[in-house]
């Protein structure tokens, strides 16, 4: 306990370089300013986005009036529906994906069977090959299977995530085997052991895997473009890209859509990071 404290004190005493700090500020500004411009643009009328640019002034980042009109117009239109479809697809994918990843990880970490390491390598490597590369031939198979323009057609390719299986397996390996032995002696079957011993203990790894699966699906663009043609099943990124491509641009609404798309992952990461912190502390004290 005393070692980290003394380390911290020492680093606090060390001199911080003002020159390097200025460099860090400049780098951070390059990355954050376009994002600030995006956020500000979503809160002001479309016409003002360009009128604030020339002549160049600080007005470019400070709106004369702030309103949520762009968001209201966007969410009451087709984009609102697309957000709903996206959320539904994401939750279904996370639910199915977690069951699939957890059962596979449990079999690969806990159960003894011949060829286990070969199966593990096969599962992880085949999920690591980028999905986009085979999205075009897969979409043609989905047409044959009658899965185009269905929610399941959007969900299915997202449930397999090699990194989620890998993470969960590593975590399950760290759980003492005596827990499972105790449960088995009490007469628990393997699904029971997974559900009532491993799943409650795997909080951090499960949240991490859920985040991976969720973000993969939330930002998906190419696959929904290939597998859905009906407007009622359009996901948010595709719907947004469509309005951007229209001849009648509405920049304010485009900005608001981009902010809404970014907000969900940013909030999810923030919330999960907080619960990660709590969980890490709890397990660390054992």
């Amino acid at each position, binding site marked *: 306990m005393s070692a980290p404290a003394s380390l911290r004190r020492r680093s606090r005493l060390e001199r911080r370089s003002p020159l390097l700090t200025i460099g860090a500020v400049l780098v951070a500004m390059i990355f954050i300013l376009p994002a600030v411009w995006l956020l500000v*643009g979503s809160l002001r009328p479309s016409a003002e986005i360009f009128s604030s640019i020339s002549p160049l002034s600080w007005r470019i980042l400070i709106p004369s009036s702030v309103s949520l009109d762009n968001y209201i117009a966007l969410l009451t239109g087709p984009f609102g529906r697309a957000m709903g479809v996206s959320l539904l697809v994401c939750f279904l994918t996370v639910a199915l994906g977690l069951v699939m*990843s957890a059962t596979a990880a*449990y079999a690969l970490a806990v159960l003894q069977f011949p060829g286990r390491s070969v199966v593990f390598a096969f599962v992880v490597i085949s999920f690591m090959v980028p999905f986009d590369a*085979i999205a*075009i031939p897969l979409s043609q198979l989905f047409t044959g299977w009658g899965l185009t323009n269905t929610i399941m057609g959007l969900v299915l390719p997202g449930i397999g995530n090699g990194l989620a299986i890998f993470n969960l397996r590593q975590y399950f390996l760290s759980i003492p085997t005596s827990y499972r032995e105790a449960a088995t002696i009490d007469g628990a079957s393997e699904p029971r052991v997974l559900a009532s011993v491993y799943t409650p203990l795997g909080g951090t790894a499960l949240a991490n895997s859920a985040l991976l699966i969720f973000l993969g699906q939330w930002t998906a*663009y190419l696959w929904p473009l290939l597998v859905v043609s009906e407007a009622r099943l359009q996901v948010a990124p595709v719907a947004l890209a469509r309005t*951007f491509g229209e001849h009648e641009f509405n920049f304010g609404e485009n900005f608001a859509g981009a902010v809404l798309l970014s907000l969900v992952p940013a909030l999810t990461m923030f919330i999960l990071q907080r619960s990660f912190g709590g969980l890490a502390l709890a397990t660390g004290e054992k």
Partner: protein
Amino acid sequence: MSVQARAAARTPATQRRGAGGGLGRRRSRRRTKELFWAAVFLLPALIAIVSMRIAPTVSAAVSSLHQGFPGGVLAAEFSGLANYSELFGNDMFRDTVIRTIVFNVIINPLQVAIALIISVLLTRKIVAPNLWRMLVFVPATVPIVGSSIVWGIAFRQDGPINAILAALGGNPQPFLTSPSQAMASIMVVISWIGIGYWMLFLVSGLQSIPDEYLEAAKLDRAGTIRTFFSITIPLLKRPLLFVLVADTVANFVLFVPIQMLTNGGPQNSTTMQMFNAYRTTYTYSSKNLGAAEVMILTVIMLAFVALQFRLLREDRPTRRKR
């Protein structure tokens, strides 16, 4: 009393486990049971792999060996490698392949190098390092559709980038509408998102380098640059390799900004293999030719990844902790 009762209840189980006679049979029964559950638990994952990874790869390979009329009115006929020879005999396709390779040779090392420089800067003794790291990371949370929109508007003739150029005394630039600038503009868009993301991995890699190594280098009077190349880089090989490979894989299948911002133009200057395969398959309805393009893209990408593994795996320290 209750303790005794619990102990009594547990006795049969202990005896069962300890019994000598039926041990072999019980163990094999237990093993069969585990095998059964392993099969049940792995089944969904294996079905997903076979139907959604292997089946499309096989179908693309088979489809690439057939030729049919665009639109698929008649059944396609087996044609051997005719699609491949047609593609490589086509100047436009060859240009697309070369463009994809050049793009990746430039963008991947460049993004990793910039991410590394920023990570080094943000792990030095500076005020509020976490704040600057967070600000650099924020663009990575914007999905690529959103980033394409921001930059698509920013790069307009009447957009803020040209306004800044004008304020600095420069001439307005066409950016996305110019064959010579469109590709560089796309690189800016994807770097804005990518660099902050890769930076996170490199920062955590830099932080896991023990201070003792850097102090030892200081005692040996090694300069900053010498220390960086002889100590930091070799110890950072694993995260560097991961970032380089993941970045390469992502950039080989780059699609969204090309479709949204330039649609492959102007004058095909931003047409890369992924977009080309999409256009061949869906816009021109040449499914067999598109499948051949997907196969060629996958082979080139895997060759690049294998090459990077080789380059970065070599001359690792011979004495490693096991």
